[in-house]
């Protein structure tokens, strides 16, 4: 699935070059925790009228969802479309840790977004759906611990987090 490789020689060289380029991009694209605090402060500093019109967590949720998508996309690019069934043929420990790092970054962004939403519980009728999404996200993270080089699991984690954020957003808009 790696469409960047045109021959065997480049296939050996390109991943390292890409890895360094993407590592640099990652610093630009994925803000750390301190940046989140700044975002939260700015949101809280907005006029009260605006805060009444729009729930305060919408912006961070949208931003986090965008980040989750961006990180997921970068993660997929970096993993080069390597599938889960090639564990026996993917010995590079460095490559495995990259996927795991992306998953950890995705998880942090997701958790930050959920903190911004606040400690409120979802409505009772939707609690099972939230529980189901959490259970499946935990299942994917556990699977990633066993197979940390899996593009499949990274993409599944991105989808599950995005789906949960979307559901929280839907509840707030209702």
């Amino acid at each position, binding site marked *: 699935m790696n469409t960047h490789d045109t021959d065997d020689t480049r296939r050996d060289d390109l991943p390292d070059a890409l890895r360094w380029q993407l590592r640099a991009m990652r610093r630009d694209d994925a803000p750390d925790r301190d940046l989140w605090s700044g975002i939260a402060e700015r949101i809280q500093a907005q006029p009260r009228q605006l805060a009444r019109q729009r729930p305060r967590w919408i912006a961070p949720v949208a931003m986090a969802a965008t980040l989750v998508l961006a990180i997921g996309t970068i993660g997929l690019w970096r993993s080069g479309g390597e*599938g*889960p*069934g*090639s*564990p*026996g*043929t993917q010995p590079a420990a460095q490559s495995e840790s990259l996927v795991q790092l992306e998953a950890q970054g995705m998880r942090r962004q997701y958790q930050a977004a959920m903190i911004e939403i606040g400690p409120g519980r*979802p*409505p*009772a*009728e*939707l609690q*099972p*759906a939230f529980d*189901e*999404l959490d*259970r*499946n996200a935990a*299942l*994917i993270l556990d*699977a990633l611990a*066993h*197979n940390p080089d*899996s593009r*499949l*699991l990274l993409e*599944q984690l991105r*989808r*599950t987090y995005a*789906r949960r954020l979307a*559901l929280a957003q*839907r*509840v*707030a808009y*209702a």
Partner: protein
Amino acid sequence: MTRAHIQRLAFGLALLTAHGAFAATPINESRPLDPRGRVEIENVKGNVDVRVWDKPEVKIEGSLGEGVERLEIDGDREHLSIRVKYPNRSGMGVFGGSDKSEPTDLRVMVPVRADLDIDVVSADVNVEGVASNELSIDTVSGEVTVAAAPREADFDSVSGDLVLTVNSSRVSAETVSGDLNLRGRLDGEVRVETVSGRIDVSTLNTRVQKLSGSTVSGDIRINTALATNGRISLETVSGDLDLTLPRNLSANVRGESFSGDLTAPGAQINRPKHGPGSSFDHRYGNGDGDVTIESFSGDATLRLE
């Protein structure tokens, strides 16, 4: 039972009957609509039943639940909006415990070619006969049952099951925990996705151009045929995956799993000497199409029948 008991019982029944009579307000409305116009329907809880006719008109019948503010019908001949409006609430709105309104039942007749966009929360949806360009249904926990032939169809559910019989060239359906059952003449693109819900897709005498299916823990079962140069991509984390294709399949099929069992007729399953994982790559016929099945721990099976 004494005479006094009987009188009290009769009085109670009369009260209940009277309450029922006032609880729901009958609906009987009609609006003109172009044969290829668009109808949007919103109802939080109760039922939405849609049927079709050849008239350039929308007819709305049913009953408005007690506590509902009103039935709002807006728009023109090209675009009609039907909304069950609830009193203003705070907090989590229709999801919160503050909503004490009763369910509303809507029975809507629409032109057979009219586009349809239905948005509900817990209301069940039943659509029959629609042959529009677009059909879109969005639900949280309501059951969705469709028998229609829209050119493009889009379904989204959280926990409600989707039971879909559609003849379409493009179908997209996803749920979180609801089961997804899709049947029909599907000859274009099909995308099905759940988190834990079960996926069951079966095409009828048609060959798909592109089919993608994904779950985290739900099982996937697909019975279809592949168009020349078509693509099928199925993936799951812990669910079992079962793909049935015709014996005359012409495609390159790849399968991968970390700890699940892989099965494919005639294919050699490769397992590394050290470490987990298994995979296969097998050409059937001329290898025109492309099929991939992937899992983490679920079993993945290809059948040729």
